[in-house]
């Protein structure tokens, strides 16, 4: 009796595998970004994120200071350990490691095996052992120490530094509050307005109703970009200018067609007798709307709220046009795109972290409200 999946073990397995592959394909890019957000810039450009948990062979350089030389039987000797270089402390925190090979030129960092004695270009010899200790012998005192290169296995390294940079950037807290200031009214206002309009379009009789519904559907498809230029000048002319009020109104306008469309479709499907019996009992339309329709439409309201929230939270374009660019009114997307990414455009680690920080809240909202989303959308689309 069951369909495709239930017929036999073989097809069940096939379905499972197909779904696993699809899910992996969908998840893989995000995982890559997530792993990268814990790595620093050098690591990201040196090895792929899929290699992050593995130890990798990397090349390093250390500059030997010339002033530590001592004289031994007429030759000058410089001794030390390459891992003791403070510049390498982030890779070898306990100043120990194992060297596979070393070299004296950057083009061939692994020219000589560990323990092998080689000639220095400036005269003299050098040897680097596998524990990192080196010994340089020269006939005369050097005024500048040689640079040694070596190849060593580096343990995997993860860091929270990117998150610190992004989360504690100057003004990020302000940007977070600004985002909420934009997002919350820009989500609630269109829902309220649309709910009343949807009720009127669904349950009230008045001339021109059909025409209005057609108009709403038509406006669904108007591209947002079309509105930016004329509206900014309109806002300026009537004195709103670039302000929170302006961006609320803009988001409200842009979100309304979908809201009215979805909510009307949902409300039309509500049982007629509830509304009619309430009318018989003498309730006004306003009372019916507030006491009966609003609670019953909750799934539809919630599903639209999720959409509008995601859209306003992630919006960059509208915020750039309708909000002033100063720090007092920057929202998070603008802060990340224009301030953080601008000066650190080449820093993949920061980019990855910024992306993750900005999707955290939408993900939480989405996962908590998920079940309403489906119910609400269904009413709007399934006939």
């Amino acid at each position, binding site marked *: 009796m069951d369909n495709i999946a239930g017929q036999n073990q073989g097809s069940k397995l096939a379905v499972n595998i197909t779904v696993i592959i699809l899910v992996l394909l969908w998840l893989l890019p995000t995982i890559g970004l997530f792993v990268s957000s814990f790595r620093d810039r050098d690591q990201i450009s040196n090895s792929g994120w899929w290699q992050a948990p593995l130890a990798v062979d990397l090349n390093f350089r250390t500059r030997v200071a010339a002033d530590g030389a001592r004289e031994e039987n007429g030759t000058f000797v410089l001794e030390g350990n390459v891992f003791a270089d403070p510049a390498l402390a982030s890779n070898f925190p306990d100043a120990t490691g194992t060297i596979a090979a070393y070299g004296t030129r*950057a083009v061939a960092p692994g020219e000589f095996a560990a323990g092998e004695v080689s000639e220095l*270009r400036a005269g003299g010899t050098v040897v680097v052992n596998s524990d990192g200790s080196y010994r340089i012998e020269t006939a005369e005192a050097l005024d500048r120490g040689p640079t040694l290169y070596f190849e060593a296995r580096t343990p995997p390294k993860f860091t929270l530094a990117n998150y610190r940079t992004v989360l504690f950037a100057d003004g990020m807290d302000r940007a977070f509050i600004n985002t909420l200031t934009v997002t919350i009214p820009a989500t609630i206002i269109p829902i309220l307005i649309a709910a009343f309009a949807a009720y009127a379009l669904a349950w009230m009789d008045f001339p021109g109703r059909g025409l209005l519904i057609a108009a709403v559907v038509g406006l669904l498809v108007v591209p947002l970009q079309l509105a930016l230029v004329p509206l900014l000048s309109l806002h300026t002319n009537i004195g709103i200018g670039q302000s929170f009020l302006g961006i609320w109104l803009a988001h409200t306008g842009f979100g309304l067609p979908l809201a009215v469309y979805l909510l009307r479709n949902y409300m039309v499907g509500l049982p007629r007798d509830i509304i009619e019996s309430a009318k018989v009992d003498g309730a006004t339309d306003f009372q019916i709307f507030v006491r009966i329709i609003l609670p019953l439409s909750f799934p539809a309201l919630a599903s639209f709220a999720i959409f509008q929230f995601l859209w306003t939270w992630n919006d960059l374009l509208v915020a750039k046009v309708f909000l002033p660019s100063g*720090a007092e009114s920057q929202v998070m997307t603008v802060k990340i795109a224009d301030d953080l990414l601008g*000066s650190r*455009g080449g820093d993949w680690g920061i980019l990855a972290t910024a992306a993750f920080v900005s999707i955290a809240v939408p993900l939480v909202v989405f996962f908590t409200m998920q079940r309403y989303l489906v119910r609400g959308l269904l009413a709007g689309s399934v006939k």
Partner: protein
Amino acid sequence: MKSRLYAGVATLALMASAAHAQDLIIEPGTEGFNWDSFEAFAAEHDFTGEALTITGPWTGADGQMVNNMLAFFAEATGADVRYSGSDSFEQDIVIAIQANSAPNLAVFPQPGLAADMAARGALAPLGQETADWMVENYAAGQSWVDLGSFENADDEAEMFGFFYKVDVKSLVWYSPEQFDEMGYDIPETLEDLKALSAQIVEDGGTPWCIGLGSGAATGWPATDWVEDMMLRLHAPEVYDQWVTNELPFNSPEVIEAIEAYGEFVRTDGWAQGGPEAAATTDFRDSPAGLFQIPPSCYMHKQASFIPTFFPDGSEFGADYDFFYFPSSSEADLGDPVLGAGTLFAITSDSPAARGLIEFFKTPIAHEVWMAQSGFLTPHSGVNLDVFSSDALRAMNEILLAATTFRFDASDLMPGEIGAGAFWTGMVDYTTQGNAESVANMIQERWDAMR
């Protein structure tokens, strides 16, 4: 590191309470700085409690440095200065001006954009007195005045932009250690530079790291190459005609310059990863090749600001150095230098805004940034000893030693060309086009604007 820390503290202090004076990164009275000019300025100007808003393209480390500098103005006058930087400043300022919510001052990275704004009547003229001052006190002062003068809404030329912070673009960055190990010498002529490039290829290396990527502005580093080539192949007058389109974009001179750039990026093995990689590698990532072991390239041509994007802890002298992008010995055009600069313009007039322009006339306003990093100045009254590094001093010398100084052409061309068609055209040329069809395309776009 220290200045960063201070800047962080300063910004925090600003946020906590604007009235409270910011910490100054240099103790007034420190030797070498022109404190007299600071005190004289402070005595004459008082804007206590007045708000002064500024927007500009500097973010991150640069943003902190400009705040550090502005803290001195705030200290001297008591004004409440608020700077905010944006990576898409060019869009933001146009929107703000359309919306009548322009800040007091805007920092334009491109004179072309400022000229557009001036033509719309959005900028306040700085006056003859400031122009006279600049002729007197800036090296090659008249040329800076000319670069900052635009036509106003009534088609009359006035000075609107005050140049502050200059970049030198004709620089090649390299690792002295690498050159030393491989036995390469700093090339003295363009011909030597090409010979060196060929030599590096012969030795199994890659001479150049080139990265044109810059988000929506992808392609601009290539425009710098072409401009430098223009100055090395043709007389400066030809360059000036090119900027105004008196010399069409598809004329043989320009095509020759494009192809001269092409020789570096498109010759097999000269550019790291080949032209395809060059076209998409982010310009901020591309110098990383110099620092890899083994090095994935030996030279990187970029303006004086690029050390900001070098790996953390890189030191001038030990890890990197630069040389002047040499001129051609055949062409006999002297040593031309390509540069760029940012200009302050008043977008919403106020006494405090005028006050800041006055402040820029004092040497101290330049010296406090010279003591940080990435700042060059044509101001002749400053003490060059306060430069924070020999690198900056050396770059300032290149600026002053130039027999010919020309401003970045793409910054002077109209936005659709200099910040549009020229960029995308260069990306096309780098990856597959031929110079002539690209030049034709750009000229067509220029024609279509009229």
